[in-house]
């Protein structure tokens, strides 16, 4: 049966030559880069990001744009099902075509990646900005500032966010959709970040080295930026890595429900929704965006999870 771990026993004798650990950095990345799951995830994400960034060139290469109809690829006699086996997969259409209008699924996946990534990354940046700022403020200032921010966080976290997002998004039909999505996603997500940052800031503030810095003559701002912030960077990187897939998934979910990205702009969630009536007759139309969505989210999650492990163990893996 499992008895105390060796790490614990090391503590008993205080044997670890340093008791603490080196701050993780390059060595941490090296450690996780040895794991096959991380390598596969990174490779996949590189491909998807590449597709997203170079979407126009990629589709030029594949030959079909995301909005181009190809009536020659569908069979009007069957109600618009793609011609040929496997949903019309051919040299022309690598992932087949959509039923009825014959749009190229590959091109729509590529452009969908672009939309998803853009929204997710912007939302992550905004969430981190708000979350870290307010979390630090709450954790460091304490008192009424903390009380106000904490109440606000409680309030937003008590909100049935998805229903609310759907309601707001459906209520405001005009304007810049992606921007609106970024704003709404961030509005309900920053409290999670802020909560973690607040907790960390509070515990770091109580660590002796912060007091030591005060004794050295550090002012408030110096304490926050020079002493506390470097110790939060790991947490923030991990949270950001894990926020990206959440946003990709939520954006896709909202688009699936018809309140996200508006057609004809392609989005993976929207593609899944469009495929629902066809899933029995043209399963590939449904499966391709679903699998891409899953793999992207999964890869980001694996990456974030591994980073988290490395940071939690202090770079020793």
């Amino acid at each position, binding site marked *: *049966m*499992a*008895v*105390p*771990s*060796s790490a614990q*026993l090391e503590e*008993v*004798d*205080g*044997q670890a030559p340093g008791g603490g650990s080196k701050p993780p950095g390059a060595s941490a990345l090296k450690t996780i880069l040895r794991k096959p799951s991380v390598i596969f995830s990174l490779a996949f994400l590189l491909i998807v990001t590449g597709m997203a960034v170079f979407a126009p060139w990629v589709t030029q290469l594949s030959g079909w744009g995301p909005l181009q109809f190809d009536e020659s690829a569908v069979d009007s006699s069957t109600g618009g099902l793609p011609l040929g086996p496997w949903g019309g997969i051919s040299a022309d259409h690598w992932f087949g075509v959509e039923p009825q209008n014959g749009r190229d699924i590959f091109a729509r996946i590529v452009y969908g990646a672009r939309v998803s990534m853009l929204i997710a990354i912007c939302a992550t940046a905004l969430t981190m900005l708000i979350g870290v700022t307010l979390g630090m403020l709450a954790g460091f200032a304490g008192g009424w500032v903390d009380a106000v921010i904490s109440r606000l966080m409680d309030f937003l976290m008590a909100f049935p966010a998805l229903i609310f997002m759907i309601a707001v998004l459906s209520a405001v039909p005009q304007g810049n959709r992606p921007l609106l999505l970024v704003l709404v996603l961030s509005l309900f997500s920053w409290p999670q970040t802020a909560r973690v940052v607040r907790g960390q800031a509070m515990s770091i503030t109580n660590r002796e080295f912060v007091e030591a810095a005060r004794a050295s003559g550090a002012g408030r701002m110096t304490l926050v930026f020079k002493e506390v912030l470097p110790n939060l960077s790991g947490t923030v990187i991990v949270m950001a890595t894990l926020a990206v897939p959440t946003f990709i998934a939520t954006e896709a979910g909202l688009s699936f429900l018809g309140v996200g990205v508006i057609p004809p702009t392609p989005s993976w969630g929207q593609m899944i929704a469009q495929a629902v009536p066809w899933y029995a007759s043209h399963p590939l139309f449904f499966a391709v965006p679903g699998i891409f969505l899953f793999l992207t989210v999964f890869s980001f999650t694996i990456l974030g999870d591994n980073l988290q492990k490395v940071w939690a163990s202090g770079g020793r893996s």
Partner: protein
Amino acid sequence: MTDKPMLQVVDLTIAFPTAAVVDQVSFEIPQGGTMGLVGESGSGKSMTSLAVMGLLPREARTTGRISFMDEELLGRSDRQMRRLRGDRMAMIFQDPLSSLNPYYTVGFQIAEAYRAHRGGSRRAGLRRAVEAMDRVKIVDADKRVNHYPHQFSGGMRQRVMIAMALVCEPELIIADEPTTALDVTVQAQILELLAEVQQSTGAGMLFITHDLAVVSQVSDRITVMRHGRTVEQGTAEQIFSRPSNDYTRQLLAATPRLDDQVDLPEPILTPVGSEDS
């Protein structure tokens, strides 16, 4: 009565996949005697005690012999060791707060140790716990059994740990830095209590500490350890009055004493308004 030692450790070597932590350590404890294991951090003294209890992590490789009441302990199955632990040999740890589970009353935790070996009802277990707490001089034991660890002071918590160790009347008590986390006045009380307990039960004791002054008071025989090896072994009197090893001597010299006369620089007592600006 036999003159055979109750605990005999011969050439004990403990190795982890990365490093050896204890190297060929040998000592024995006679019936009712006390062996003090003393050393600084990293000396392997705690590992040695855990090896006796069979509490080393799985990845540890142990060789040598540990015989307890003429029975070989090394190589025993976990199930066999479990029957011994808490029953015939018990352990007291350094930090009583973290060594007690915050979620259960102290009575429950003491009774648990009893019932694991002797069975019986929950109520009978609690009665035993009250008795054990009485023995370690916790006042109002019948009320205090229902309290949680955080409701006790540091010294009282250590008494609870001792009560837990005593509840099955063990033949061997292993005390791993039992007073290190305590204030001096409390330390004195706990040391006194341990001596009384040993007197009344006749149990042997393995006492682990980094504090030479403490070990000089509790142990008949002392083993000085460093980097996993035995540096010197002998009676307390031998070690303290005629240390043969350099390291022992250094350690003794470094230990601060209440009657040391260390020279200090003279303070500068500046009269008001003189050279000072």
